């Protein structure tokens, strides 16, 4: 048996580094190399720490502190035990669910149409339009809908002219279903954007293999297409849920707070509308939102991981 000296060892590195135990200078060298390779992402990391990490830590800290600065469960208890804050949460969750499921389903069908279309311009136009509309929200969107579907909006007038009056049939742009209606405007394109790559991942050979084994188009979708896409669709709906749950500006501009959802309640507290002794309630609300969004993101990542394994 040959015994290699330290000098001969193939694991010896200039500067004395070896695989078994590293000396101080070697460790320093490795650290420098590591820093050098990760240098490009350091600015982004710093940015994330400043704008996300620090505020999140502050929220978590103050969510469990009384006005006097002591640890307490009271803030969370206040928002979960009932009253306006719990009602706000329930409305937010309901709004997020509605604006995740309906756009999720509609967006899936649109993405299917895009992916199966042989018409290249149609594909390009719908994809580009979805990219723009998914980013369109806030005051501009609220104003557009007020101008179109408000009580004296242009579209409302047109509908009135042909004998349809949505407002007399219970439609109200400034209530829950009105807000949900407006959210669809950016949630549907968002769904199209997210789910279209999953459709593109469906291999034509799977359909041919199914056909070859005797399956009709319907049975292919039932046994293969839909099951393969389901995790991606559900994962995308998780994202829509998060988007609908956290949206603030559109609802605020549209309803001026008459539809009480959690982001608007947090906004109100930030503007100084605080009940005496509930200074840290806004932190507790934000903390609860973070928890819900965290669950949403984890659900999305898990489902997406499953799909990516199938569709790679």
């Amino acid at each position, binding site marked *: 048996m040959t015994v290699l000296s330290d000098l001969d060892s193939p694991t010896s590195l200039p500067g004395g580094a070896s695989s078994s135990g590293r000396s101080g200078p070697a460790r320093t060298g490795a650290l420098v190399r590591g820093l050098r390779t990760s240098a490009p992402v350091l600015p982004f990391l710093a940015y994330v720490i400043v704008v996300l990490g620090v505020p999140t830590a502050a929220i978590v800290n103050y969510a469990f502190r009384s006005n006097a600065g002591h640890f307490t469960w009271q803030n969370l208890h206040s928002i979960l035990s009932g009253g306006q804050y719990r009602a706000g949460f329930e409305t937010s969750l309901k709004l997020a669910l509605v604006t995740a499921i309906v756009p999720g389903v509609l967006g899936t069908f649109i993405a299917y149409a895009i992916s199966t279309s042989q018409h290249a311009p149609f594909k390009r136009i719908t994809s580009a339009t979805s990219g723009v509309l998914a980013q369109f929200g806030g005051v501009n969107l609220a104003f557009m809908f007020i101008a179109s579907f408000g009580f004296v909006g242009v579209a409302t007038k047109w509908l009135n002219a042909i004998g349809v009056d949505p407002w007399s049939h219970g439609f109200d742009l400034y209530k829950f279903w009105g807000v949900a209606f407006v959210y669809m405007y950016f949630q549907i394109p968002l769904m199209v954007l997210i789910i279209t790559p999953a459709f593109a991942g469906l*291999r034509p*050979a*799977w359909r*041919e*293999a*199914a*056909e*070859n*084994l*005797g*399956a*009709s188009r319907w*049975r292919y979708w039932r*046994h*293969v297409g839909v*099951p*393969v896409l389901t995790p991606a669709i559900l994962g995308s709906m998780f994202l829509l849920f998060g988007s609908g749950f956290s949206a603030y500006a559109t609802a605020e501009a549209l309803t001026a707070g008459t539809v009480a959802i959690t982001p608007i309640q947090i906004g109100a507290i930030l503007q100084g509308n605080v009940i005496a002794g509930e200074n840290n309630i806004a932190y507790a609300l934000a903390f609860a939102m973070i928890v819900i969004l965290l669950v949403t993101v984890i659900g999305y990542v898990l489902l997406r991981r499953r799909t990516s*394994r*199938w*569709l*790679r």
Partner: protein
Amino acid sequence: MTVATTDSPTATNAGRLAARGAPVVFDNLTRRYGATTALDGLSLEIAPGELVALLGPSGCGKTTALRVLAGFERPDLGRVLVDGIDVSHVPAQRRDMGMVFQSYSLFPNMNARDNVAFGLQIRHQRAAPRRAKATELLELVGLAEHVTKYPHQLSGGQQQRVALARALAIEPRVLLLDEPLSALDAKVRAELRDQIRALQQRLAITTVFVTHDQEEAMSMADRVCVMFQGRVEQVAAPSVLYCQPATPFVGQFVGVSSRVPVTRRGDRAEVLGREVPIRGDLNSVPTGDLEALLRPEDLDVVVNPNGLGVVTHRSFLGATTRVGVGVAGTNLLVDVRSAHADELDLGTRVDVRVIARDVLVATPRRAT
């Protein structure tokens, strides 16, 4: 001019395997994609239980022919007959053909057993018997321990075996193999090649096998159909294809050939100083400049210090060694027994002799 020739489909296996496979006929198939003609009057008869390989360079139409047979493409002209019935307009899902795809194409949401049982499920077979049959087929292809694994948990070779079992599960009248081994490494390819051939013979299924790998085609098929530009160049048993290529294209495409300028003298050609009979129909031999297509085993070399040839390279192939010899600006490949190859060092002067009984002649390649 090339002359397509076709051996009778009553080849080797046909008689004894006729019980289960169906006869297949491509009748004058034409398929065009815009200005491109993928199939140009393709005609081919395949006997029940026979394995025919469609072999040719990329774009020769072999995959199109298979897809027309599978029902994924419609011919512009011509018919496809299976068991004597025209199926040209029968949808793919009603053709009862099993197909193995190049990219495996296993359903990713199903485990191996469910993939194999899929065709039976579509045929409304009950869960217990279809699972039993799927398990049995997976055992047949050597995957008994992997029945509950999903495609992403299987290697390429294992996935292709599952695909084969899935295609066989529906007891197809015709088995279609679309370059099923091309994505696998050499060792797995060789194993699976033998396995597919053994299963095909055991189950007696008429099989059409598309490949661009001539070694695969020659080692597996009862007959090989060489295609070029959408047409059949020659259909024959592998040995016939190799030893008696009907056209210069087949001679050049199948196996290794050297091209040597020749002078025609009646029904003979003068090759490297020796007159050798011209193979095939003399009426189809072109006029003008000609070249002979010579296999490495059609030639022999003898060491001669005053010879006209010079050894330019040597490749050890096992029992034989392939020697490159430069003669008057032409490089010839000659197979010699490895035991005698030691004396053929690089730069050795040699004489090259033609030992073939006859030769195939063609116009020089640049002129074709």
